[in-house]
């Protein structure tokens, strides 16, 4: 965890809350299993749980741990639940829960993952079974996993349709796949992928100068090994 930078925590309720000695509890989201929050951005020094406000109701800086894991499933990332309690002045016992909110993000960026089922053109018999892509969306960045797919060419250009609307880029994006097959042989230089704004992918062999209308040989063609590529969703 040495290189982890914590996620700043803000009170999610836009309150003029100034509650002396209030208690702020942190849990694994939707549970009552305590999960430490930290005093420093590098998540080295945990706060006690609950974190206490001072006599004026002010909390110290709080950082959430993006590496926090499910206590029941190692390696599974979790979000936080934050609960704010006022206290009894006499015995400091919790009196009222002012909020109890799940899904406080432990990560700074938005994350989403899914599968995209699609169809190829350019094959005499479409390899439908290999047409499913997996994607991981990190805010504006998409990591697209393209499975290996090879089949007999119908001597037309190789395309795939279509990406879900949520991961279609605002402007055309380009990626590269190093291992490809054309005319039943390894394609030196692999192939490129043009990711269009309508969600269509156009492939072009990279053994020669760029041409979107290439890849029209006969024989076996396709992506020789699974590969991953990155692209950005928008420019602003």
């Amino acid at each position, binding site marked *: 965890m040495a290189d982890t930078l914590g996620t700043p925590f803000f009170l999610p*309720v836009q309150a*003029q809350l100034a509650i002396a000695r209030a208690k702020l509890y942190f849990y694994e989201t939707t549970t009552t299993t305590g999960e430490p929050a930290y005093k420093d951005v590098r998540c080295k020094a945990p706060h006690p749980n609950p974190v206490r406000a001072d006599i004026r109701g002010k909390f110290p800086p709080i950082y959430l741990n993006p590496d926090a894991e499910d206590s029941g499933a190692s390696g599974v990332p979790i979000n936080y639940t934050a609960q704010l309690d006022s206290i009894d002045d006499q015995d400091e016992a919790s009196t009222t829960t002012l909020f109890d909110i799940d899904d406080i*993000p432990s990560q*700074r960026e938005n994350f989403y993952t899914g599968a995209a089922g699609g169809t190829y053109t350019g094959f005499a018999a479409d390899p439908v079974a290999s047409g499913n892509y997996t994607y991981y969306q990190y*805010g*504006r960045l998409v990591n697209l996993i393209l499975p290996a797919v090879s089949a007999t060419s119908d001597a037309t250009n190789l395309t795939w349709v279509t990406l879900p609307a949520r991961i279609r880029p605002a402007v055309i994006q380009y*990626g590269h796949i190093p291992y490809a097959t054309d005319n039943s042989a390894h394609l030196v*230089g692999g192939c490129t992928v043009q990711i269009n704004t309508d969600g269509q992918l156009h492939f072009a062999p990279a053994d020669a100068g*760029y041409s979107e209308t290439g890849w029209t040989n006969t024989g076996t063609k396709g992506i020789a090994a699974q590969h991953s590529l990155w692209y*950005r969703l928008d420019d602003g």
Partner: protein
Amino acid sequence: MSKGTPFFLLEQIAIDAGAALGGAQLYFYQTGTTTDQDVYTEAALSSTHAQPVVADSGGTFADIWLNPDESVDYRVRLEDSDSNLIFQVDNVPRYRENFESGSFTVTWAGFSADPGNTSCSWYRIGSVISLTIPLGTGTSNLTTFSFSGLPAALVPDSAQYLHFPYAQDSGAHLAGGAVGIISGTVIKFAPADVAYSLAGWTASGAKGIETIGNAFYRLRDS
């Protein structure tokens, strides 16, 4: 469905003003417009707030989540209960991560006649850089090929490696393309048709990047 982006008031309002903000109204629009844009009551984005979101009598708003799947950022407008403007801010990001973009002018080396394009675009997404380098071939001067001018803000902590599939050497397509190595403010290129060597790319004739290339690299190692 995405998880939402938590919304925080952009201006710190004095605690003593709490009572004065009783019934205050928060409006959310598409940035730069008065077109409503939904905000949500929870991170899962399954339940929308009414527009405007209204504070309770103590000036407290319920929690508010923004939707990263919207196509544009938000405009936020806060009015008191009598509809007097308190603040209005555009470009409130719908994403959680930092984003900025820009361009810079590259200076080519390795050419007796430089490639004509010199504008390089960049997009910074958190600590990941997406670099769109200019296409263009020029005439080789028999020395290795590089460009300089990377702004200091885009210099990575350690050397980063990029790949561009369409390149040209000695007037012909270079099967395997080119690799770019970022070292300080300079990107040095190596042909990928043979084993790695930064000393390559010294033939005569036309050389360079054949088509626009885009590559990602990390800015920080920690």
